[in-house]
């Protein structure tokens, strides 16, 4: 993959720079002049009421959603309309969806092997070794040859995490990874994410799991109506939110 616009040898501390980004869906403004920087190794939890733009924001980071204005730079590559740039960025950005989005016609192992083989160009056996390694890490290696529909929701989400990790991304995006899960399965997925965070992975998570935010987040970013209206360390944010909007939000989700 050509590192298109990386020219200087200096590696900036930020892996993701979002500058003045706007995104509209018809008349609805999903993101209104959002600026966010993510440092390497940083863990950010994005929260806010529904429709506040948090999912849209992380979906813009790997260009699943196209921003209308502003700049997004991921690992030194600016996201424009150049397909080569977009694909090279996507290789470095892993994403986990609310609805898992595993490929149902491929086995668990094949789900994990597809992109490394076809995009990274590694060999079949190397891809399989890597897949089994990461499946072991998410504690699901004995299901490697099953199909997604044969697994529970929690297992499927852990496969989805392993699938994203198989590309050896520099940053992981989580879009409400536990929202579609039965309560008893939330824990197993969160444990996997905590482990990943402790290994130093850069993470941006959209989640309402405040326990998770407390445990791993370096920063909580609170969004409302397409704007970032509060950013703080988790302890500060939960104990003493500055804005009324955040207070009201926290009151609602804690009960």
């Amino acid at each position, binding site marked *: 993959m050509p590192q298109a616009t990386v020219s200087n040898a200096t590696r900036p501390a930020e892996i993701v720079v979002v500058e003045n980004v706007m995104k509209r869906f018809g008349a609805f403004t999903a993101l209104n002049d959002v600026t966010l920087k993510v440092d390497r190794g940083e863990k950010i939890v994005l929260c806010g009421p529904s429709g506040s733009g948090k999912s849209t924001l992380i979906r813009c980071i*790997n*260009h*699943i959603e196209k921003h209308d204005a502003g700049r997004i730079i991921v690992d030194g590559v600016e996201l424009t309309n150049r*397909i080569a740039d977009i*694909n*090279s960025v*996507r*290789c470095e*950005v*892993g*994403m986990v*969806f609310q*609805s*898992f*989005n*595993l*490929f*149902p*016609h491929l086995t668990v192992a094949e789900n994990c092997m*597809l*992109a490394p083989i*076809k*995009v990274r160009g590694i060999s079949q056996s190397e891809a399989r070794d890597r897949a089994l390694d990461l499946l072991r890490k998410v504690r699901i290696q004995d299901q490697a040859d*099953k*199909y*997604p*529909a*044969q697994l529970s929701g929690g297992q499927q989400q852990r496969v989805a995490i392993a*699938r*994203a990790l198989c*590309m050896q991304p520099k940053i992981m995006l989580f879009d409400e990874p536990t929202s579609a899960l039965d309560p008893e399965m939330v824990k197993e997925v969160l444990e996997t994410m905590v482990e990943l965070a402790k290994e130093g992975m850069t993470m941006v998570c959209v989640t309402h799991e405040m326990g998770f935010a407390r445990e791993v987040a370096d920063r909580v970013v609170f969004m409302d109506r397409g704007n970032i209206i509060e950013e703080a360390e988790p302890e500060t944010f939960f104990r003493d939110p500055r804005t009324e909007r955040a207070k009201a939000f926290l009151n609602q989700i804690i009960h």
Partner: protein
Amino acid sequence: MFGVLFEQAADGQRYIDWLLSGLGWTLALAFFGWWIAFGIGIVVGVGRTVQNRFFALPARLYVEIFRNIPVLVQMFLWYFVFPEVVPSAIGDAIKQIPPPWASFFPALLCLGLYTASRIAEQVRAGIEALPKGQLEAANALGLSGYLTYRHVIVPQALRLIVPSLTSEVMGIYKNTSVALTIGLMELTAQARQISEATFQTFTAFGAATIVYLCLALIAYQAMALIDRAVRIPGSAPATLPADQDLSGEVQQGALPGAMEAAK
């Protein structure tokens, strides 16, 4: 009743041999026509779903043209008109093709291209029925558009449309009978020839009817087998409610009700 079929015809063969030779042409036409149709149908069907107008527009045009002209007219166009509109050197070469092939190739082209337009629409419907998350997940992994279609979208869409492709299989082999109008001695043409030679109209067309019906049954069964073979483990049969578990393995959901009753 069918005794007359085993009598000797004027050319020394038995009438049943005429019928079998007709069956051979019918099967050859349907079989090779199907693969042409399937190949082009997938490409055009994919073309119908891409953003790029450079692909989408020709695909749309293809479907509109080939689906909306009657098969009989298309047959005549390929047989009578096509050799006249191409450069005369090519046209003359086409006219030099010896008899059975001179009818067979235009018929093959006609049925293949016509059926392709119908398959293309099925493929498009299958692709559009997939959850959007599949495309997003493939994009997020860095798969290119081609790789996404090749490994994620098309394999799932094709599984989804196996039941409705059954009627396209039926369609192409039934439409082979239209080839008699351009002189191909396929099953219906042979039946007519037997009827003219023996004056046993009922027997001749009765035999052809039975052969066509048997082919239909075989096609249904084959497609049901394919449906079962490619079904994704763990997924519920698309056309059966989950609680009607037919011993886990037998999945007859792909068969229309009439066929179920016939078994």
